[in-house]
């Protein structure tokens, strides 16, 4: 039972991770002078888009999404609408936080917002996929000892890793090496992506390692 779940999660994570690689490689084949630094925004949205699509598809197929009481069309549309709204709100939230951290208010607003979109894709979108647009469930998962399933734990880990990655990504900016990746927000998006990949890798391993300690309350 446990091993099956972990294996399922590991494969899902592998698919998501490979989608990031594909999103980096495929545009390079089709687009001329595409590079991660040079045409950073293209890369960013290609990664964000592919991660979003793959995440939604995977969780749809696996049926991880929480069971819904009602199954009417209007309820589904309502759900979809609320998910979109939450996603947008989370983008705005991240944007605000990044500006508070010192990003220029106006000059690079688009870049900052793109970073916010990427972070939302890595964190909020997964929450929406796994938990649905249910803030209470989110709060439960992200408070201490609140995880109820393997997926909750994986969500905690990937979200934490993405955010820490983006946080660490800001550190090289003041260095005077004059590298292309020191330009705002390249290092942060790279950091977030690296953190997300690390999270995807670490989550199954960590859960496997600690499976004795993890005692989820059965729903």
């Amino acid at each position, binding site marked *: 039972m446990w091993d099956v779940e972990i294996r399922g999660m590991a494969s899902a994570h592998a698919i998501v991770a490979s989608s990031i690689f594909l999103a980096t490689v495929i545009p390079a084949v089709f687009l001329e002078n595409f590079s991660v630094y040079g045409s950073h925004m293209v890369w960013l949205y290609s990664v964000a888009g592919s991660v979003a699509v793959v995440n939604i598809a995977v969780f749809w197929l696996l049926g991880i999404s929480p069971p819904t009481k009602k199954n009417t069309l209007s309820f589904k549309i309502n759900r979809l609408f609320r998910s979109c709204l939450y996603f947008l709100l989370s983008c705005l939230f991240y944007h605000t936080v990044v500006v508070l951290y010192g990003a220029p208010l106006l000059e690079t607003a688009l870049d900052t917002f793109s970073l916010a979109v990427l972070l939302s894709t890595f964190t909020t979108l997964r929450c929406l996929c796994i938990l649905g647009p249910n803030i209470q469930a989110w709060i439960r998962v992200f408070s201490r000892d609140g995880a109820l399933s393997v997926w909750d734990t994986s969500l905690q880990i990937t979200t934490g890793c993405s955010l820490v990655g983006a946080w660490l990504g800001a550190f090289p900016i*003041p260095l*005077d090496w004059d590298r292309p990746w020191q330009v705002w927000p390249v290092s942060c998006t790279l950091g977030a992506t690296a953190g997300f990949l690390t999270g995807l890798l670490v989550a199954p391993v960590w859960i496997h390692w600690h499976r004795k300690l993890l005692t989820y309350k059965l729903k």
Partner: protein
Amino acid sequence: MFIMRLSSSVFALLCLMCEVLCIALFLRGFFPVPVKSSVSSKSKVSDLPPEPLTGSGTNASESPGPVFRRVVILLVDALREDFVFGSDGLRFMPYTRQVVERGSSHSFIAKARAPTVTMPRIKALTTGSIPGFIDVVMNLNSPALLEDNLIWQAKNAGKRIIFYGDDTWVRLFPKHFMEQDGTTSFFVSDYTEVDNNVTRHLDDTLKRDDWDILILHYLGLDHIGHISGPHSSLIGPKLTEMDDIVKKIHAALISKESEGTLPNLLVLCGDHGMTETGSHGGSSDPEINTPLVLISPAFRRKGGFEVPGVLEQVDLAPTLALGQGLPISKNSVGRLIPAVFEDLSLRDRLRFLQLNGHQLSCLLEDNNPSFHKEDGYELFRVAEKSHGSWMKLYMDGNTSEVLGNMGKKVLKQYLEALKAMSSALSKQLGKYDMYSMIMGMILVLILLLLAMPEALSREAAVDIPLAASLFSLPFYLLCLLGSALHVLICTSAGGLCYLCSLPWVLVFTLIILSSALMCALVTMAARRMPTSTKTPTKGSGWTLSELDVVLLVGTVGHTLSLSSSSFIEEEHQTWFFLLNTLCLAVFQDVCRKYFREQEEGGEEESFSSFSPAVELGMSAGSEKWLALATPLLTLTCCRLLRSLNHTGVQWAHLPDFGHWLNSADHKMFLSLLAALSLALIFLLIQRHCSLVSKIALSLGLLGVYSYRAAVGNVLFPWQHSSRAVSKLEVERWDGEFLTGERREESAMTRPRRADAAFSGSQRRLNLLFAEASAEVTEKNYRCLEGVSFCQSGGTVEARFVYVFVLGILFTGVKDLLRAQLTSSGGDGGRLKSRGLWEVYSGVVLLVALLFRAHNLPTLACCLLIQTVMAQFIWKRLHYDAAQTTIMHYWFGQAFFYFQGNSNNIGTVDISVGFVGLESYVEAPAVILTALSTYAGPLLWAFHLLCYLTSQRHRAVMGLGHGSYCFALLRSIPAVFYVVLVTGLRYHLFIWSVFSPKLLYEAMHTLITTAVCLCFTFMDQDRSGRL
């Protein structure tokens, strides 16, 4: 039995004091002492050594006569070597190039030393000495050059000197010039007027005959460099203009030349170069390589372009001195340029070399106790001896070839001796006193490592086992080892160390004291060890909260970040970043507290209550929302303050809100903002004060506003702006013209900090020099653009505020003393708390007076954050003393940078030292400057003190523990930095980036010690009462 029992705060204080002493020792070793005989004594003609002669002749010690009649020094600021000798010179300076290639001239590349800033370079050119880093810092406020220098010597010998150009000279040499016209370098964007001001005198002066030395200092080229760099289209015309001036002067000098008189000399030189972006200050090649062209009919004609030889900039001073028949200035480390005297008789040349050698050897004797061992010194003695025997032959009338050959040999010997002595002296400048440095470093490190376990334990008192350590074997062994080491080092190192120059008794007392300290600390640490290994087993369930992780990672991360020069320059970014993370962590804590609690109460409704109705309803709900809003408010405040003052290097040039406010057009906004901030400050601070203090505070804050209005920063509502605009601001150097200059700079590529020492704020530093001395000497007569500076400058208003500050402080201290006298109880406690708050509000009022008008919002935000955080976060969330202390420390650090400071000496605002004073008075000026610079950390530390004292119903330990944490927080980066700097002492940026930071760290540690003294005082009378 001999166990000393100290409260932990006293112990922390003692440790911190030892640390300050160790750091002082380290600094003494780190900053090389300038090579100097003495500051004020000057060389005299009568001191010159006699010409070595076997028989004592009648006029043996007579100075040799001058070689040149008139000297014109044409100093072009920031003239880079390739502007003359490179392709630019070929294109834009045809006349100079022709003279260099075919005329009777000598050309050299003169190497300037860092800091390549105008004022130290002028000093080097005139004194021949190399001003060290510490010189630059120490001389911030002494305008006149007191050292022995060429200009003084010339004036003393009755030479008539005329000066036109940068008024730095006028301040350095007051009353030295027969005629002078100084131009200010304030308006950087002006590059034509500054030079026209010099050139307009030229024709007239060149016609006249009543002068001996003419000094011209052209600033335009430097200004063009700052505006648009060395490759701009403005450079060419400017160089051509300079070329025309060379031509004009040269023609005039030639026309004046006549048979029977001595030849004239024209010197074309630069004070420093410029980098590829046009700034200067560091030690990269384009900055230090300046051209030196000497033109005189006395020289042989050149056959073609030769690659110019390389020499030191300081070599010009002795050459000019001897060329004018003047004694070489005492502290000169330069050696004369042999080519200049090539065509003189052998006897004169030898004599000049002997004089130069004698002066260098005297300097060596004064500065190096083991001068006998120096190669150069011995070489010089040998050369002098052979000079003597040559003289004997010469006087005997021997004119054979033997004499010539022998003379050449003596000449060679002299030159070698000069070279060796000069390099020995220069080397001494760059030499570290490793003994002092390592002793300071080791002591400070051991102190931190051994005292740390005590800090981590939360006991109220510390037992120092004096007896156990004083009567132990290790103590005696340590003493013995220390003494042996000292003797060994001092006998072998040649006594260049500071410690070796101390009297023996003092040194041995120090050794005994430090050994005792070490032994006591080791004993204490050893005693702590078993318990510290025991505690984890007991508290294995002890987990770190997210906040603890942030605090820990932040402290460690910041300490480690000091090892990178970029992170030091941009340290404010680190702190802002950490502070933001801290606020988010606190926010998460608040959310958890309030939402978890609710969740336990009622599961479902926790999120249906997003409506603001709750806020208006019961107090519990409103408290929750206020608590939730607090970190967000803090974050917003920090973000706004961040755009107020841009500091650092990389982004400092971007236009910031502070400059916008300071520009003349926005005076209305500034006035409004300042008034609002002052009102907010009053509202926030008056709650805790007695009625009398409240009144005094309000009057004082009004006084602050009227002071700012008097100085011309802000407007009274009834005042018309046009009048105030015409007044000159005290803070001119940071005013609008600088904004303009900075904007222009930012239009280019962003200033590369790579190898520019003071690069980013170099102009600021330049102006700082200018400002410092301007205030002192010229406050009363300086006129700039027809605007009189002769105004009261708000002295009366400032003094008015000082009276209230003293009054409030006095009330506060009185309350504190009364609290101490009354017996324990609620009343005494309340009195004490109020007394502290009154002292605090007195300090706030003083800081409000010292802060610039545009910085008043910083102060208001500081108080606002303190109030709301204390009200809703620290009390409600039950953070312990350590967590609160760390947060206060972080906020203090961040506010240090919010108010516009950086790790560069240039951003120290020394105009603060003149608030309320009519002239420069050292002690108050230094104290006021330090207070205003460290206002942020100080205010937060005082707030911590007030807060912890008011929290007396909670852990009694709070204050002592807080003080300990505070000391530890300061010690960790300071000690790490000392160790780091020792390791990086040969780093490229050691003087530009690491040294200023070291001074800041030392100063900060000193201030923290003072704060800990207050902590201990407050803690002491409590423990006394208990």
